[in-house]
Protein backbone atom coordinates (compact mmCIF):
# COMPACT_ATOMS: atom_id res chain seq x y z
CA UNK A 1 0.00 0.00 0.00
CA UNK A 2 1.23 3.46 -0.90
CA UNK A 3 0.41 6.05 1.74
CA UNK A 4 2.15 8.99 0.13
CA UNK A 5 -0.55 11.71 0.14
CA UNK A 6 -1.98 12.62 -3.26
CA UNK A 7 -1.76 16.26 -4.34
CA UNK A 8 -5.38 16.76 -3.30
CA UNK A 9 -4.76 15.17 0.10
CA UNK A 10 -1.62 17.27 0.54
CA UNK A 11 -3.58 20.43 -0.19
CA UNK A 12 -6.09 19.54 2.54
CA UNK A 13 -3.31 18.59 4.94
CA UNK A 14 -1.63 21.96 4.35
CA UNK A 15 -4.94 23.75 4.87
CA UNK A 16 -5.57 22.06 8.23
CA UNK A 17 -1.95 22.48 9.30
CA UNK A 18 -2.19 26.20 8.59
CA UNK A 19 -5.47 26.37 10.52
CA UNK A 20 -3.90 24.72 13.57
CA UNK A 21 -0.84 26.95 13.49
CA UNK A 22 -2.51 30.27 12.74
CA UNK A 23 -5.88 29.89 14.47
CA UNK A 24 -5.59 27.35 17.28
CA UNK A 25 -2.09 27.64 18.72
CA UNK A 26 -2.19 31.47 19.13
CA UNK A 27 -5.54 31.24 20.95
CA UNK A 28 -4.27 28.38 23.08
CA UNK A 29 -1.31 30.45 24.25
CA UNK A 30 -3.74 32.66 26.18
CA UNK A 31 -5.80 29.83 27.70
CA UNK A 32 -5.20 27.90 30.89
CA UNK A 33 -2.83 25.00 30.12
CA UNK A 34 -5.62 22.58 31.03
CA UNK A 35 -8.33 24.28 29.01
CA UNK A 36 -10.58 22.13 26.87
CA UNK A 37 -12.88 24.82 25.51
CA UNK A 38 -12.63 28.08 23.67
CA UNK A 39 -14.61 31.20 24.46
CA UNK A 40 -17.99 30.85 22.68
CA UNK A 41 -17.25 33.71 20.28
CA UNK A 42 -13.90 32.16 19.28
CA UNK A 43 -15.52 28.76 18.81
CA UNK A 44 -18.29 30.22 16.63
CA UNK A 45 -15.75 32.11 14.53
CA UNK A 46 -13.64 29.00 13.97
CA UNK A 47 -16.67 26.88 13.06
CA UNK A 48 -17.51 29.44 10.40
CA UNK A 49 -13.99 29.04 9.07
CA UNK A 50 -14.09 25.24 8.95
CA UNK A 51 -17.47 25.44 7.20
CA UNK A 52 -15.97 27.86 4.68
CA UNK A 53 -13.09 25.40 4.21
CA UNK A 54 -15.68 22.68 3.43
CA UNK A 55 -14.38 20.55 6.28
CA UNK A 56 -17.07 20.92 8.96
CA UNK A 57 -18.54 17.61 10.13
CA UNK A 58 -15.72 15.77 8.47
CA UNK A 59 -16.76 12.32 9.74
CA UNK A 60 -20.38 12.70 8.68
CA UNK A 61 -21.35 10.49 5.71
CA UNK A 62 -22.13 12.36 2.53
CA UNK A 63 -25.78 11.20 2.55
CA UNK A 64 -26.23 13.15 5.78
CA UNK A 65 -24.57 16.29 4.47
CA UNK A 66 -20.93 15.53 5.28
CA UNK A 67 -18.16 16.77 2.99
CA UNK A 68 -17.58 13.38 1.29
CA UNK A 69 -13.98 12.88 2.32
CA UNK A 70 -12.74 9.30 2.40
CA UNK A 71 -11.49 7.76 5.62
CA UNK A 72 -7.82 7.69 4.59
CA UNK A 73 -7.88 11.42 3.96
CA UNK A 74 -9.81 11.98 7.19
CA UNK A 75 -7.14 10.04 9.04
CA UNK A 76 -4.39 12.17 7.51
CA UNK A 77 -6.30 15.29 8.54
CA UNK A 78 -6.98 13.94 12.06
CA UNK A 79 -3.21 13.57 12.47
CA UNK A 80 -2.88 17.28 11.70
CA UNK A 81 -5.83 18.45 13.81
CA UNK A 82 -4.40 17.05 17.02
CA UNK A 83 -1.03 18.83 16.86
CA UNK A 84 -1.62 21.30 19.66
CA UNK A 85 -1.86 21.28 23.44
CA UNK A 86 -5.49 20.16 23.75
CA UNK A 87 -5.36 18.17 20.54
CA UNK A 88 -5.37 14.63 21.89
CA UNK A 89 -8.92 14.80 23.25
CA UNK A 90 -10.33 17.97 21.72
CA UNK A 91 -8.71 18.38 18.30
CA UNK A 92 -9.09 22.05 17.32
CA UNK A 93 -11.52 22.39 20.25
CA UNK A 94 -14.23 20.71 18.19
CA UNK A 95 -14.24 23.33 15.45
CA UNK A 96 -14.45 20.60 12.80
CA UNK A 97 -17.68 19.19 14.32
CA UNK A 98 -18.64 15.52 14.41
CA UNK A 99 -20.42 13.28 16.88
CA UNK A 100 -17.69 10.78 17.73
CA UNK A 101 -18.89 7.58 19.33
CA UNK A 102 -22.47 8.77 19.60
CA UNK A 103 -23.22 8.82 15.86
CA UNK A 104 -26.65 7.31 15.21
CA UNK A 105 -26.68 6.75 11.48
CA UNK A 106 -28.88 3.63 11.83
CA UNK A 107 -31.66 5.72 13.39
CA UNK A 108 -35.13 5.49 11.82
CA UNK A 109 -36.63 8.53 10.09
CA UNK A 110 -38.35 9.82 13.22
CA UNK A 111 -35.15 9.48 15.27
CA UNK A 112 -33.13 11.15 12.55
CA UNK A 113 -35.44 14.19 12.68
CA UNK A 114 -35.37 14.37 16.47
CA UNK A 115 -31.73 13.53 17.13
CA UNK A 116 -29.40 12.96 14.20
CA UNK A 117 -30.02 16.10 12.14
CA UNK A 118 -30.01 18.49 15.13
CA UNK A 119 -26.71 16.85 16.21
CA UNK A 120 -25.17 17.25 12.78
CA UNK A 121 -26.26 20.91 12.76
CA UNK A 122 -24.51 21.34 16.12
CA UNK A 123 -27.78 22.03 17.97
CA UNK A 124 -27.74 18.93 20.17
CA UNK A 125 -24.93 17.16 21.96
CA UNK A 126 -25.05 13.42 22.64
CA UNK A 127 -23.21 11.14 25.06
CA UNK A 128 -22.23 7.49 24.66
CA UNK A 129 -23.31 5.37 27.65
CA UNK A 130 -21.63 1.99 27.53
CA UNK A 131 -19.16 1.46 30.40
CA UNK A 132 -20.46 0.42 33.81
CA UNK A 133 -18.87 0.07 37.25
CA UNK A 134 -18.75 -3.68 36.53
CA UNK A 135 -16.42 -3.08 33.56
CA UNK A 136 -16.11 -1.62 30.12
CA UNK A 137 -13.82 -3.95 28.17
CA UNK A 138 -16.30 -6.81 28.00
CA UNK A 139 -19.68 -5.17 27.45
CA UNK A 140 -21.36 -8.47 26.56
CA UNK A 141 -20.93 -9.60 30.16
CA UNK A 142 -20.35 -6.36 32.07
CA UNK A 143 -23.59 -4.58 31.22
CA UNK A 144 -25.81 -4.88 34.28
CA UNK A 145 -28.14 -1.98 33.53
CA UNK A 146 -31.51 -3.60 32.91
CA UNK A 147 -34.32 -2.54 30.64
CA UNK A 148 -37.64 -4.23 31.39
CA UNK A 149 -40.75 -4.12 29.25
CA UNK A 150 -43.51 -1.84 30.55
CA UNK A 151 -46.40 0.03 28.91
CA UNK A 152 -45.18 0.13 25.29
CA UNK A 153 -41.76 1.03 26.47
CA UNK A 154 -38.87 0.07 28.69
CA UNK A 155 -37.86 0.86 32.26
CA UNK A 156 -34.14 1.32 32.76
CA UNK A 157 -32.41 0.68 36.08
CA UNK A 158 -28.67 0.69 36.65
CA UNK A 159 -25.59 2.89 36.39
CA UNK A 160 -22.84 3.94 33.98
CA UNK A 161 -19.40 5.34 34.68
CA UNK A 162 -16.64 7.20 32.79
CA UNK A 163 -19.25 8.82 30.55
CA UNK A 164 -18.00 12.01 28.91
CA UNK A 165 -20.29 14.96 28.40
CA UNK A 166 -23.46 13.47 29.90
CA UNK A 167 -24.00 16.50 32.14
CA UNK A 168 -24.11 18.79 29.11
CA UNK A 169 -25.78 16.52 26.57
CA UNK A 170 -29.37 16.75 25.41
CA UNK A 171 -29.53 12.98 24.88
CA UNK A 172 -27.38 9.88 24.95
CA UNK A 173 -27.23 6.43 23.49
CA UNK A 174 -27.41 3.98 26.36
CA UNK A 175 -26.82 0.24 26.29
CA UNK A 176 -28.93 -1.93 28.59
CA UNK A 177 -29.62 -5.62 29.05
CA UNK A 178 -33.00 -6.64 27.70
CA UNK A 179 -32.50 -10.41 27.86
CA UNK A 180 -30.42 -11.77 30.72
CA UNK A 181 -30.07 -15.20 29.11
CA UNK A 182 -28.60 -14.11 25.80
CA UNK A 183 -25.18 -12.55 26.58
CA UNK A 184 -24.15 -10.21 23.77
CA UNK A 185 -27.43 -11.03 22.02
CA UNK A 186 -29.40 -9.59 24.93
CA UNK A 187 -28.28 -5.98 24.80
CA UNK A 188 -30.37 -3.15 23.36
CA UNK A 189 -29.37 0.41 22.54
CA UNK A 190 -31.74 3.18 23.66
CA UNK A 191 -31.81 6.89 22.95
CA UNK A 192 -32.40 8.60 26.29
CA UNK A 193 -33.25 12.30 26.57
CA UNK A 194 -31.36 13.98 29.40
CA UNK A 195 -34.58 15.38 30.86
CA UNK A 196 -36.23 11.96 31.13
CA UNK A 197 -37.47 11.40 34.71
CA UNK A 198 -35.23 8.85 36.41
CA UNK A 199 -32.08 9.87 34.50
CA UNK A 200 -29.45 11.32 36.83
CA UNK A 201 -25.88 12.57 36.42
CA UNK A 202 -24.74 11.68 39.90
CA UNK A 203 -21.16 12.87 40.09
CA UNK A 204 -18.03 14.05 38.36
CA UNK A 205 -15.26 11.49 37.98
CA UNK A 206 -11.84 13.14 38.10
CA UNK A 207 -9.02 11.44 36.21
CA UNK A 208 -5.49 12.07 34.98
CA UNK A 209 -7.15 13.99 32.20
CA UNK A 210 -7.65 17.01 34.42
CA UNK A 211 -8.76 19.22 31.54
CA UNK A 212 -12.09 17.45 31.35
CA UNK A 213 -14.11 15.11 33.53
CA UNK A 214 -16.16 12.01 33.09
CA UNK A 215 -19.44 11.42 34.90
CA UNK A 216 -21.30 8.67 36.71
CA UNK A 217 -24.91 8.13 35.69
CA UNK A 218 -27.83 6.49 37.43
CA UNK A 219 -31.03 5.22 35.81
CA UNK A 220 -33.76 4.84 38.39
CA UNK A 221 -37.08 3.62 37.01
CA UNK A 222 -36.29 5.61 33.89
CA UNK A 223 -39.08 4.89 31.37
CA UNK A 224 -38.49 5.35 27.65
CA UNK A 225 -40.94 4.51 24.87
CA UNK A 226 -40.43 1.93 22.14
CA UNK A 227 -39.69 4.85 19.83
CA UNK A 228 -36.39 5.30 21.67
CA UNK A 229 -34.93 1.93 20.67
CA UNK A 230 -32.00 2.49 18.30
CA UNK A 231 -31.85 -0.34 15.76
CA UNK A 232 -33.44 -3.57 16.94
CA UNK A 233 -34.25 -4.98 20.36
CA UNK A 234 -31.33 -7.20 21.43
CA UNK A 235 -29.25 -5.80 18.57
CA UNK A 236 -27.33 -3.26 20.66
CA UNK A 237 -24.04 -5.11 20.88
CA UNK A 238 -23.47 -4.74 17.15
CA UNK A 239 -24.07 -0.98 17.44
CA UNK A 240 -21.48 -0.67 20.24
CA UNK A 241 -19.00 -2.89 18.44
CA UNK A 242 -19.33 -0.94 15.21
CA UNK A 243 -18.72 2.40 16.98
CA UNK A 244 -15.77 1.12 18.97
CA UNK A 245 -14.09 -0.48 15.95
CA UNK A 246 -14.51 2.59 13.72
CA UNK A 247 -13.43 4.98 16.42
CA UNK A 248 -10.09 3.21 16.85
CA UNK A 249 -8.74 4.77 13.66
CA UNK A 250 -9.24 8.47 14.55
CA UNK A 251 -8.26 7.58 18.13
CA UNK A 252 -4.93 6.31 16.83
CA UNK A 253 -4.56 9.28 14.48
CA UNK A 254 -4.76 11.75 17.37
CA UNK A 255 -2.03 9.82 19.23
CA UNK A 256 0.17 10.08 16.15
CA UNK A 257 -0.48 13.81 15.80
CA UNK A 258 0.53 14.50 19.38
CA UNK A 259 3.58 12.26 19.02
CA UNK A 260 4.65 14.24 15.94
CA UNK A 261 4.20 17.54 17.79
CA UNK A 262 6.21 16.30 20.79
CA UNK A 263 8.93 14.90 18.53
CA UNK A 264 9.22 18.15 16.56
CA UNK A 265 9.63 20.05 19.83
CA UNK A 266 12.34 17.62 20.93
CA UNK A 267 14.20 17.95 17.62
CA UNK A 268 14.14 21.75 17.80
CA UNK A 269 15.17 21.82 21.46
CA UNK A 270 18.03 19.39 20.91
CA UNK A 271 19.47 21.73 18.26
CA UNK A 272 19.29 24.75 20.57
CA UNK A 273 20.22 23.41 23.98
CA UNK A 274 23.91 23.19 24.87
CA UNK A 275 25.33 21.20 27.75
CA UNK A 276 29.00 20.66 28.61
CA UNK A 277 30.01 22.73 25.61
CA UNK A 278 28.03 20.99 22.89
CA UNK A 279 24.50 20.79 21.59
CA UNK A 280 22.19 18.01 22.73
CA UNK A 281 21.69 17.01 19.11
CA UNK A 282 25.41 16.16 18.87
CA UNK A 283 25.07 13.51 21.58
CA UNK A 284 24.44 9.94 20.59
CA UNK A 285 22.14 9.35 23.59
CA UNK A 286 19.83 12.09 22.32
CA UNK A 287 20.15 11.08 18.67
CA UNK A 288 19.04 7.56 19.50
CA UNK A 289 16.04 8.83 21.41
CA UNK A 290 15.07 10.92 18.40
CA UNK A 291 15.52 7.94 16.08
CA UNK A 292 13.34 5.81 18.37
CA UNK A 293 10.69 8.55 18.21
CA UNK A 294 10.88 8.48 14.44
CA UNK A 295 10.50 4.68 14.36
CA UNK A 296 7.49 4.81 16.69
CA UNK A 297 5.77 7.54 14.67
CA UNK A 298 6.36 5.93 11.28
CA UNK A 299 5.22 2.53 12.52
CA UNK A 300 2.04 3.90 14.06
CA UNK A 301 1.32 5.96 10.95
CA UNK A 302 1.71 2.95 8.67
CA UNK A 303 -0.56 0.69 10.72
CA UNK A 304 -3.20 3.41 11.13
CA UNK A 305 -3.30 4.25 7.44
CA UNK A 306 -3.45 0.54 6.62
CA UNK A 307 -6.55 0.17 8.81
CA UNK A 308 -8.08 3.27 7.20
CA UNK A 309 -7.33 1.99 3.70
CA UNK A 310 -9.05 -1.33 4.43
CA UNK A 311 -12.05 0.53 5.82
CA UNK A 312 -12.10 2.72 2.69
CA UNK A 313 -12.09 -0.37 0.48
CA UNK A 314 -14.93 -1.91 2.47
CA UNK A 315 -12.96 -4.98 3.51
CA UNK A 316 -12.81 -6.23 7.13
CA UNK A 317 -10.58 -4.02 9.25
CA UNK A 318 -11.32 -5.08 12.83
CA UNK A 319 -7.89 -6.59 13.40
CA UNK A 320 -6.12 -3.68 11.73
CA UNK A 321 -8.15 -1.19 13.80
CA UNK A 322 -7.12 -3.02 16.98
CA UNK A 323 -3.48 -3.04 15.88
CA UNK A 324 -3.38 0.64 15.02
CA UNK A 325 -5.05 1.69 18.28
CA UNK A 326 -2.64 -0.50 20.23
CA UNK A 327 0.50 0.66 18.43
CA UNK A 328 -0.35 4.36 18.24
CA UNK A 329 -1.37 4.67 21.90
CA UNK A 330 1.65 2.77 23.22
CA UNK A 331 4.20 4.37 20.89
CA UNK A 332 2.67 7.81 21.43
CA UNK A 333 3.32 7.44 25.15
CA UNK A 334 6.94 6.49 24.49
CA UNK A 335 7.50 9.44 22.14
CA UNK A 336 6.09 11.97 24.61
CA UNK A 337 8.14 10.41 27.42
CA UNK A 338 11.39 10.62 25.43
CA UNK A 339 10.61 14.16 24.34
CA UNK A 340 10.14 15.17 27.97
CA UNK A 341 13.45 13.55 28.85
CA UNK A 342 15.20 15.57 26.14
CA UNK A 343 13.62 18.78 27.47
CA UNK A 344 14.81 18.10 31.01
CA UNK A 345 13.21 20.19 33.76
CA UNK A 346 11.29 22.38 31.31
CA UNK A 347 9.55 19.27 30.03
CA UNK A 348 7.92 18.79 33.41
CA UNK A 349 6.36 22.26 33.56
CA UNK A 350 2.98 23.56 32.54
CA UNK A 351 4.83 26.11 30.38
CA UNK A 352 5.05 23.41 27.72
CA UNK A 353 2.30 21.05 26.51
CA UNK A 354 4.39 17.93 27.13
CA UNK A 355 3.16 17.31 30.69
CA UNK A 356 -0.47 17.44 29.54
CA UNK A 357 0.22 15.09 26.65
CA UNK A 358 2.05 12.73 29.02
CA UNK A 359 -0.94 12.47 31.35
CA UNK A 360 -3.52 12.27 28.61
CA UNK A 361 -1.52 9.81 26.50
CA UNK A 362 -1.46 7.42 29.46
CA UNK A 363 -5.24 7.23 29.32
CA UNK A 364 -5.12 6.26 25.65
CA UNK A 365 -3.77 2.82 26.59
CA UNK A 366 -6.99 2.24 28.53
CA UNK A 367 -9.67 4.32 26.83
CA UNK A 368 -11.87 2.71 24.17
CA UNK A 369 -10.43 -0.71 24.83
CA UNK A 370 -7.19 -1.27 26.75
CA UNK A 371 -4.04 -2.56 25.08
CA UNK A 372 -4.72 -6.05 26.43
CA UNK A 373 -8.11 -6.20 24.73
CA UNK A 374 -6.60 -5.04 21.44
CA UNK A 375 -3.99 -7.80 21.75
CA UNK A 376 -6.76 -10.29 22.53
CA UNK A 377 -8.63 -9.27 19.37
CA UNK A 378 -5.51 -9.72 17.27
CA UNK A 379 -4.72 -13.06 18.95
CA UNK A 380 -8.21 -14.32 18.07
CA UNK A 381 -7.53 -13.46 14.45
CA UNK A 382 -4.17 -15.21 14.49
CA UNK A 383 -5.29 -18.28 16.39
CA UNK A 384 -8.85 -18.60 15.19
CA UNK A 385 -12.17 -17.46 16.52
CA UNK A 386 -12.48 -20.47 18.85
CA UNK A 387 -9.77 -19.02 21.10
CA UNK A 388 -11.30 -17.20 24.05
Amino acid at each position, binding site marked *: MDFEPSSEQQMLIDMVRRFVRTEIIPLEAKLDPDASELAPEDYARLVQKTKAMGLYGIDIPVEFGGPDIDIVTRTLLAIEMSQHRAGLYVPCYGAFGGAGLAQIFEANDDQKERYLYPTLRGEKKPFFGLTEPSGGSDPARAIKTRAERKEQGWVLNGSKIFISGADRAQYGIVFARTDAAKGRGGITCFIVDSDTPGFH*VRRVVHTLRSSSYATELEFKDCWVSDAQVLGTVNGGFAVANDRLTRQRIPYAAACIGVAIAAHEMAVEWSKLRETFGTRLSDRQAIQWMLVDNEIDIRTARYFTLEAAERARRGIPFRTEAALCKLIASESGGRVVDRSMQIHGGMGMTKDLPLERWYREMRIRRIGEGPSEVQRMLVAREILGASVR
Partner: protein
Amino acid sequence: MELRPSKPFTDMTEAAIKKLPGQLGVYQIADAQGTIVKIGFAGGRAPFGLRSELLKELEALGAGHRFRVEVNMQYTTRYQELLMLHQADFGALPRENAKDPPPRLGHLSPR
Protein backbone atom coordinates in the same frame (compact mmCIF):
# COMPACT_ATOMS: atom_id res chain seq x y z
CA MET B 1 -11.30 14.60 48.77
CA GLU B 2 -14.70 15.59 50.12
CA LEU B 3 -17.36 16.31 47.52
CA ARG B 4 -18.35 19.54 49.28
CA PRO B 5 -15.51 21.42 51.01
CA SER B 6 -15.99 21.63 54.76
CA LYS B 7 -12.81 23.38 55.88
CA PRO B 8 -13.49 26.46 57.98
CA PHE B 9 -13.35 29.84 56.24
CA THR B 10 -10.53 32.31 57.01
CA ASP B 11 -10.86 36.10 57.02
CA MET B 12 -9.74 37.34 53.63
CA THR B 13 -6.90 39.66 54.57
CA GLU B 14 -3.66 40.32 52.75
CA ALA B 15 -1.70 38.79 55.62
CA ALA B 16 -3.75 35.58 55.56
CA ILE B 17 -3.49 35.27 51.79
CA LYS B 18 0.27 35.77 51.83
CA LYS B 19 0.60 32.68 54.01
CA LEU B 20 -1.00 30.55 51.28
CA PRO B 21 1.08 28.15 49.20
CA GLY B 22 1.89 29.11 45.62
CA GLN B 23 0.21 25.91 44.46
CA LEU B 24 -2.65 25.40 42.05
CA GLY B 25 -6.15 24.69 43.24
CA VAL B 26 -9.66 25.96 43.84
CA TYR B 27 -11.13 28.41 46.30
CA GLN B 28 -14.44 29.62 47.65
CA ILE B 29 -15.11 33.15 48.87
CA ALA B 30 -17.98 33.90 51.25
CA ASP B 31 -19.46 37.17 52.49
CA ALA B 32 -19.70 38.09 56.17
CA GLN B 33 -22.93 36.08 56.48
CA GLY B 34 -21.26 32.94 55.16
CA THR B 35 -22.96 32.97 51.75
CA ILE B 36 -20.60 31.78 49.05
CA VAL B 37 -20.25 34.62 46.56
CA LYS B 38 -17.52 33.22 44.32
CA ILE B 39 -15.88 29.95 43.32
CA GLY B 40 -12.60 30.26 41.47
CA PHE B 41 -9.39 28.49 40.62
CA ALA B 42 -5.70 29.16 40.41
CA GLY B 43 -4.54 27.59 37.17
CA GLY B 44 -1.28 26.94 35.42
CA ARG B 45 -0.82 30.55 34.38
CA ALA B 46 -1.26 32.06 37.87
CA PRO B 47 2.23 33.33 38.80
CA PHE B 48 1.96 32.31 42.46
CA GLY B 49 -0.98 29.95 42.33
CA LEU B 50 -3.66 30.38 44.99
CA ARG B 51 -1.77 33.21 46.62
CA SER B 52 -1.73 35.50 43.59
CA GLU B 53 -5.29 34.65 42.55
CA LEU B 54 -6.70 35.44 45.99
CA LEU B 55 -4.74 38.68 46.18
CA LYS B 56 -6.46 39.66 42.93
CA GLU B 57 -9.82 38.67 44.41
CA LEU B 58 -9.15 40.76 47.52
CA GLU B 59 -8.45 43.76 45.34
CA ALA B 60 -11.60 43.18 43.26
CA LEU B 61 -14.07 42.30 46.03
CA GLY B 62 -12.69 44.40 48.87
CA ALA B 63 -12.51 43.65 52.57
CA GLY B 64 -15.15 41.88 54.64
CA HIS B 65 -14.99 38.49 52.94
CA ARG B 66 -13.73 35.08 53.96
CA PHE B 67 -12.10 32.32 51.95
CA ARG B 68 -11.07 28.69 51.93
CA VAL B 69 -8.83 26.86 49.49
CA GLU B 70 -8.22 23.34 48.27
CA VAL B 71 -4.84 22.56 46.72
CA ASN B 72 -5.72 20.53 43.66
CA MET B 73 -3.91 19.84 40.40
CA GLN B 74 -7.28 18.96 38.86
CA TYR B 75 -8.35 22.54 39.34
CA THR B 76 -10.28 22.80 36.06
CA THR B 77 -12.59 19.87 36.65
CA ARG B 78 -12.86 20.51 40.40
CA TYR B 79 -13.83 24.13 39.69
CA GLN B 80 -16.61 23.01 37.36
CA GLU B 81 -17.71 20.37 39.85
CA LEU B 82 -17.99 22.95 42.63
CA LEU B 83 -20.02 25.27 40.41
CA MET B 84 -22.38 22.46 39.43
CA LEU B 85 -22.74 21.35 43.06
CA HIS B 86 -23.54 24.90 44.12
CA GLN B 87 -26.10 25.15 41.34
CA ALA B 88 -27.67 21.85 42.42
CA ASP B 89 -27.70 22.79 46.12
CA PHE B 90 -28.85 26.41 45.85
CA GLY B 91 -30.54 26.62 42.44
CA ALA B 92 -28.15 29.22 41.07
CA LEU B 93 -24.49 30.05 40.67
CA PRO B 94 -22.70 32.17 43.30
CA ARG B 95 -23.30 35.89 42.83
CA GLU B 96 -19.95 36.74 41.25
CA ASN B 97 -19.88 33.65 38.99
CA ALA B 98 -23.39 34.43 37.75
CA LYS B 99 -22.11 37.72 36.32
CA ASP B 100 -19.83 35.81 33.91
CA PRO B 101 -20.97 32.18 33.87
CA PRO B 102 -18.67 29.61 32.28
CA PRO B 103 -19.90 28.53 28.86
CA ARG B 104 -21.74 25.20 28.71
CA LEU B 105 -21.70 24.40 32.41
CA GLY B 106 -23.28 20.99 32.98
CA HIS B 107 -25.90 19.83 35.46
CA LEU B 108 -25.49 17.36 38.30
CA SER B 109 -28.10 15.75 40.48
CA PRO B 110 -25.88 14.57 43.33
CA ARG B 111 -27.22 12.13 45.90
